[in-house]
């Protein structure tokens, strides 16, 4: 573990790993820039679907980046009390705040949760990329199923990378601790305890009951957008899942269909060859369908899922911003009705006013960041999917065309043979 060689510039290169196990987990192109969710199967010719313009963007991003993080190598830890998975988190950086240029730690899902809640606490109106869910309710997936672990690993990787790309979040103290400290447990205990978190929630609830005095129109518009975006993402996500399901059922039937041609061929003479030809075309097409489904579930599905979660994040951010404003307004009202001891309260009100100002500005800034990356992510995912579908049809086309050629070529021969005799 400690001897892991991490090359200086890993954008586009395969990491030099010691264990074979690691190769299973991720192979080939681990793109770090823009968190582009590319599939990692060696078989899929993924690179051909990436646009040149995107490559340029990423390379530019890569040039400006001074911190690189990867998540890999899931391992299960079995103890008397519990069993859980840890992931290896490797950091390479040239930032001066970091004592070393390379770090390697092991983290479990709880640790990621900790980091996220710390970030949200410290930067309430910044948009933090979502973590993969704790449990997957939809499918009866075991927590320790390989596919589940791999999907989660990729999502965790994207989560950390989004943070490294964020100008403010990447400088967070907690982020540094997460990446560098051997043991996270002591830090987890040091954070604001359960009780203080409870009181914050209660304050927030009280404020929301009061209602906001006046909401800036820009935030009202933002709220409306967030609600609509959430609905739309859920719809797109649902449709995509349905499509994946239908594809799978189609593929299952194709797998039954092909063999009927081969079975028939066994009792035929002249007809055997064309029958086998059709049968093998169907077989090849069903393999292509399998690949297509895999691509869909590795590229489009996780991306859409993350943006469904993003919508929830956005809603939380809006709520927190509203709460900050509500707190200020409450204190401000209290100040207005007070006649004596105004100075101290005034200070508090001024502080809260600053807080509101900061929160709003932070949100504004991050909002456009988020919009840009959302657009890039979804655009890229849809483009790749469309490109893969084109590729799928092109491959199937080639299969049938070569069959056609073989059949027509044969009948030409037969005709020539008949003429000769």
């Amino acid at each position: 573990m400690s001897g892991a060689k991490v090359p200086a510039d890993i954008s586009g290169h395969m990491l030099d790993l010691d264990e074979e196990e690691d190769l299973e987990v991720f192979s080939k192109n681990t793109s770090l820039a823009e968190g582009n969710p590319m599939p990692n199967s060696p078989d899929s010719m993924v690179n051909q679907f990436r646009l040149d313009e995107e490559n340029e963007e990423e390379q530019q991003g890569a040039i400006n980046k001074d911190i690189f993080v990867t998540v890999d190598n899931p391992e299960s830890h079995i103890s008397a009390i519990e069993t859980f998975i840890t992931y290896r988190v490797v950091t390479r950086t040239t930032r001066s705040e970091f004592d070393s240029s390379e770090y390697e730690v092991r983290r479990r899902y709880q640790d990621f949760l900790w980091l996220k809640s710390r970030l949200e606490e410290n930067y309430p109106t910044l948009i933090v990329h979502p973590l993969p869910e704790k449990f997957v309710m939809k499918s009866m997936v075991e927590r320790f199923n390989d596919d589940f672990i791999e999907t989660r690993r990729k999502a965790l990787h994207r989560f950390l990378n989004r943070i490294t790309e964020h100008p403010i979040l990447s400088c967070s103290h907690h982020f540094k601790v997460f990446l560098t400290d051997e043991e996270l447990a002591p830090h987890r205990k040091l954070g604001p305890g359960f009780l203080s978190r409870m009181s914050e929630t209660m304050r927030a609830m009280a404020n929301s009951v009061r209602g906001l005095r006046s909401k800036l129109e820009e935030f009202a518009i933002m709220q409306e957008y967030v609600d609509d975006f959430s609905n739309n993402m859920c719809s797109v996500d649902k449709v995509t899942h349905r499509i994946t399901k239908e594809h799978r059922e189609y593929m299952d039937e194709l797998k039954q269909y092909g063999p009927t041609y081969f079975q028939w061929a066994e009792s035929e003479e002249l007809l055997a060859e064309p029958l086998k030809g059709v049968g093998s075309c169907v077989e090849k097409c069903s393999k292509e369908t399998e690949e297509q489904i895999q691509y869909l579930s590795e590229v489009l599905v996780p991306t859409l899922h993350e943006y469904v979660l993003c919508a929830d994040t956005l809603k939380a951010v809006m709520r927190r911003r509203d709460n900050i404003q509500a707190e200020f307004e409450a204190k401000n009202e209290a100040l207005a009705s007070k006649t004596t001891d105004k100075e101290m309260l005034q200070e508090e009100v001024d502080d809260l006013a600053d807080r509101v100002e900061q929160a709003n500005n932070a949100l504004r800034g991050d909002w456009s960041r988020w919009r840009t990356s959302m657009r890039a992510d979804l655009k890229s995912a849809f483009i790749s999917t469309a490109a893969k579908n084109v590729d799928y049809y092109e491959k199937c086309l080639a299969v049938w065309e070569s069959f056609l050629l073989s059949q027509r070529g044969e009948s030409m021969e037969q005709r020539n043979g008949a003429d000769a005799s």
Partner: protein
Amino acid sequence: MAEDVKGESVASNDESDRAASDESLSNTMLTEGSCLLRRMEICVAEAEKRSGKNAVSMQETYTVYLVETRPMDAIAEGRNPPPDSLWRRYSEFELLRNYLIVTYPYIVVPPLPEKRAEFVWHKLSADNMDPDFVERRRIGLENFLLRVASHPVLSNNEMLYHFLTKEHGWKEMVYETGFQTKADSRLRALSATFRVRSPHKRLVEMKHYSDGLQSHTSQLLRARTRVADRLYAVYKVHGNYGRVFSEWSAIEKEMGDGLQSAGHHMDAYAASVDDILEEEEHYADQLKEYLSYAEALRAVCRKHELSQFELEMASQDLISKKQQREELATGIVRTFSLKGMTNKLFGQEAPEQREAKLNLLEELIAEGEETVKEKTAECDEHAEKAWADIVRFKDQKDKDLKEAFINYALMQISMCKKGIQVWSNAKECFLKM
């Protein structure tokens, strides 16, 4: 399919009678034949719904098909005479086919399109009145007529000619041939189980082949139906993207246009599956024809078995009668019989009675020998003619099905090209997001 046969030369009925047995065994391609299709252009042009009272005086709706014919020489001369035409129901086609089956038990008679829609994928209608079904049936009926009219043996049949030309009274004419009684007795005999002592090896092989053909084509058709169902679902579900992208595009400034137009392509993609699957039905129909052909082939083999069985029965009968004669003549009982025992116990009969019995037996034996001779000739002729037609059928099947597979490949290619088009367009739209 059968249209190709127009160009082929076929042996006429007279010639095959004259031809030596070895010649008729091979699929002969003689130059000039008297095949009906060469003399007459046939088509089933239209279908219409009719209402009327049926046999039990109940009102029913049925479909009639317009059978049109035109003399070939008139067409060849450049004149374009209007066709003669008459209307026929599906049941009349069935009658014609049943008549042909009984009259030519050694011929693999072309099948009719299915009576009821089978192997239906769920969106396709199983209703006999559905216009798509009626249209496919019209094509199937035309195909049937073309195949029969181009068959070296069947095309010369009188009832066929009258079917095509005599609208009224045709049914009565067919019934008057008395083929029904023959059909009924054959049907009864065939449904009974019987064992043949010395089966015709090649025809038994053919029977097994026909069983295989039936099961393989029906398995294929079933699987294809399920695939069609699933394919339909995949395409149609993409239509949801159209609706969802449209809604989403309303709230997006930069991405809106790209999403909206991509959504339109998704709608087009979903809609394209209807034509794709309708075309594939033609492929299914071609396979269904051979599924039915397998039954016809089997029937030919079975009927020969029946002839063989009847021959063996007749031979057996003759042998036992000859034995009886020997016993009576010599008084020696070779085999155990009740008569023999009672004779031993109670004494033999009077010489006059014996004389009478012997004479009767001689008559029966003479008859029996005639019967055996006839049956043997019948059996041999059946086997010969059957084999000739089976060879012709095999060649036709190989050619037709190979062409069907090529057409299927063309359909798949067309589907792929449409898919490439749609998704390339969608990709262009996404690029504009």
